[in-house]
């Protein structure tokens, strides 16, 4: 049976068919749906959200050493977090087969950088596979598990946004039920102390030689012979783009196993074709190695190394061909940036925060990053998960040393705080800083589409579980000044900032209100209620001052003709932030 699946759905199916029994991940676009689609295989696979990617990979490593087939999935920057176990596990090797999925984001659709994680395979000395569609995404998970067990290596499985989120046809197969391998204590393999690791490194280099032999033999790397004037080496989505542009007018060496590279096959291909192109998205990972082997090819001198690739870019770069397009004045089209939803609990928080002077607002990764956009404009920085608190700490120390009148306010979400914020807050307390940490607890992992986390009370597979008590956790770290507030109540919010700014010790403000898009649990309903009603504007009273517009709520529109504000009923959820900021009380609740 053939089904149309995204690459992420296909990987999940591949995990099922490959006999994987343990899978862990931290959500991150474009990887999130992999674990969400593994979760329904409750009987066969233990699937878990980990608090961060390092924990996800380490728990998958534990599962492998215990003898099970295992998988960890994450977005490209998540592998940076998981790099520590990755490099040493490269030395030890595996027991049960193990796959680490890296979902890279060329073009940065939803990421802070576009790093090319293929380099991790070379750096950590592990095997790598790169699927180019959903069928391969499924089949290569099975291949990855076999390679992992045969060659005693973790397999890095490199996907990109277009592979993860494009749907293509997949032929489904059956699950291979295998017996769990037995766990055998083996200090010479799994106890990476210096005396052991020195030997492991020597063995690893030999392993890589064997893997290169495999790379030259496997049908995962194959020739497609057509006209030999042009030869193209490509992998992943770049292969599909190359086929789109050149069709059967060129020959191909299609690479699916891309570390170690099949240098013999590459030499053979290069000898047969007149002009050799290496078409890669982002970095010249393959090209550099081919050139280092003394083989001539054309790559990044023509194909851009920044941004997402597409067939048009390749056609222009290599054939100087461009399709005719409709010409028109595009300047009249207004931007449509993403924005905090109507009723978002972050809105009241940012509206009050934006009024503060002499503050540096260190932001983090999540929906609340949108608090930095116009018209709220309440953010100074964003680097990576957890950095709001620790960067803020460093900055505050410097401001204090040089007697600058600046206070740091760090803004971080609940899930991001659990991810890597806790360590950072330890730093603030331990090193006697006075930053203000704001944990925006919206009771869910928001931006990636509502995943459970240690604060929500449920696991990925729907089991009720313990709920982290954030105020108690923060107190245990050593923070003495803690306030929990309702961010939709602006006077409460304002008082909290006044209070925190008056202190010369670390403080934590926890805003507690669920994401407006969250499906409320029974506990949410008990604590927050369900329906809040609608707001409306009395046009007689509205003076057109536009203060409410400065909240950036997409339910409000300023009508330039009549100089009045209108509230869209289909958008408003009655959060009352606009009602509180109106200086002439022109906004009220419908029916009140």
């Amino acid at each position: 049976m053939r089904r149309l699946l995204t690459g992420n759905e296909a990987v999940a199916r591949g995990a099922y068919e490959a006999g994987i029994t343990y899978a862990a991940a931290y959500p991150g676009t474009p990887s999130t749906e992999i674990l969400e689609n593994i979760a329904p295989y409750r009987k066969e696979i233990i699937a878990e959200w980990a608090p961060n990617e390092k924990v996800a990979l380490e728990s998958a490593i534990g599962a492998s050493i215990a003898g099970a087939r295992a998988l960890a999935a994450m977005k490209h920057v998540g592998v940076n977090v998981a790099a520590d176990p990755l490099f040493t596990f490269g030395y030890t090797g595996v027991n049960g087969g193990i796959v680490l999925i890296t979902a890279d984001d060329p073009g940065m659709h939803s990421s802070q950088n576009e790093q090319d994680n293929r380099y991790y395979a070379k750096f950590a000395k592990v095997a790598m596979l790169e699927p180019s569609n959903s069928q391969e995404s499924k089949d290569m998970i099975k291949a990855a598990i076999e390679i992992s067990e045969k060659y005693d290596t973790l397999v890095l499985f490199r996907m990109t946004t277009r592979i993860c989120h494009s749907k293509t046809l997949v032929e489904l197969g059956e699950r291979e039920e295998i017996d769990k391998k037995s766990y055998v204590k083996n200090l010479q393999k799994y106890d990476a102390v210096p005396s052991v690791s020195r030997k492991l490194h020597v063995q690893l280099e030999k392993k890589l030689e064997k893997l290169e032999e495999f790379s030259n033999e496997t049908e995962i790397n194959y020739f497609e012979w057509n006209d030999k004037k042009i030869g193209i080496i490509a992998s992943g989505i770049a292969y599909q783009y190359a086929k789109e542009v050149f069709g059967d007018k060129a020959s191909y060496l299609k690479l699916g196993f891309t570390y170690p590279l099949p240098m013999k096959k590459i030499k053979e291909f290069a000898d047969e074709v007149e002009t050799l192109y290496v078409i890669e998205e982002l970095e010249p990972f393959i090209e550099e190695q081919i050139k280092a082997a003394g083989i001539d090819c054309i790559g990044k001198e023509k194909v851009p190394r920044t941004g997402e690739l597409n067939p048009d870019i390749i056609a222009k770069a290599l054939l100087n061909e461009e399709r005719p397009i409709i010409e028109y004045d595009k300047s009249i089209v207004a931007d449509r940036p993403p924005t905090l939803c109507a009723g978002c609990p972050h809105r009241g928080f940012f509206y009050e925060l934006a009024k503060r002077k002499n503050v540096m607002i260190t932001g983090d990764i999540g929906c609340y990053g949108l608090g930095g956009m116009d018209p709220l404009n309440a953010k100074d920085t964003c680097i990576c998960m957890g950095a709001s608190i620790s960067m803020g700490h460093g900055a505050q120390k410097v401001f204090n040393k040089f007697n600058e009148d600046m206070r740091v306010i760090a803004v971080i979400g609940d899930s991001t705080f659990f991810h890597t914020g806790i360590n950072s807050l330890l730093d603030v307390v331990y090193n006697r800083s006075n930053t203000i940490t704001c944990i925006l607890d919206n009771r869910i992992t928001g931006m990636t589409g509502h995943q459970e986390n240690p604060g929500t009370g449920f696991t990925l597979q729907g089991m009720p579980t313990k709920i982290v008590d954030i105020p108690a956790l923060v107190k245990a770290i050593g923070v003495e000044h803690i306030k929990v507030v309702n961010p939709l109540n602006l006077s409460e919010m304002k008082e909290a900032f006044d209070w925190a700014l008056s202190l010369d010790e670390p403080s934590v403000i926890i805003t507690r209100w669920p994401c407006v898009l969250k499906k409320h649990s029974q506990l949410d309903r008990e604590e927050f209620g369900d329906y809040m009603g609608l707001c409306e504007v009395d046009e007689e009273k509205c003076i057109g001052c536009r203060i409410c517009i400065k909240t950036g709520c997409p339910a409000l529109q300023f009508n330039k003709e009549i100089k009045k504000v209108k509230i869209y009923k289909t958008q408003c959820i009655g959060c009352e932030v606009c009602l509180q900021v109106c200086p002439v009380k022109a906004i009220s609740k419908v029916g009140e």
Partner: protein
Amino acid sequence: MAEVKNILLVGVGGQGTILASKILSAGLVGAGYDVKMSEVHGMAQRGGSVTTQVRYGSEVFSPIIGKGQADILVCFEAMEGLRLLDHLKLNGKVVVNDYKIPSIPILTGKRDYPEDVIEKIKEKASTMTIDAAGIAEDLGDAKTMNVVLLGALVKAMGLDEIDWEDVIRKTVKEKFIDINIKAFNKGIKAIK
């Protein structure tokens, strides 16, 4: 060899482009085509522009549609149609929903919603305008606007041979089947 056709759906996060493209691609797969479909998730969903790209034929390689390549541009929101008009083939068709959603720069008064958007699209391409929101409201469920547009798309692309009622029965939740079939047929009739 069936030539590859390119359908580009454009709109704003939350307008239901994903369900429309799900039904569309299920129908195309059932008809025996190779199909690839691409969407962007994540940050863009928070009130930003969304596009769904569907390509079908005997063999499809790239899942994405380039500039000047779409056979049809289906605009769930009018200004989004003008934004992506350069993706249409010179002789391509446009189905545009007579529906406007102002973006944040417009709501805050920094920009204006462009005047006569639909007229501007018409000047450049063969365009069919449809009041999908009005039709959906008359049916009693404003959310079926997406399936009204799907009906219009199917008619405009000459895909009405496929048994779409059957496809809808198999792809949407049971309680929404009847209303969606009605909405789909209204969309078909809206295109002359």
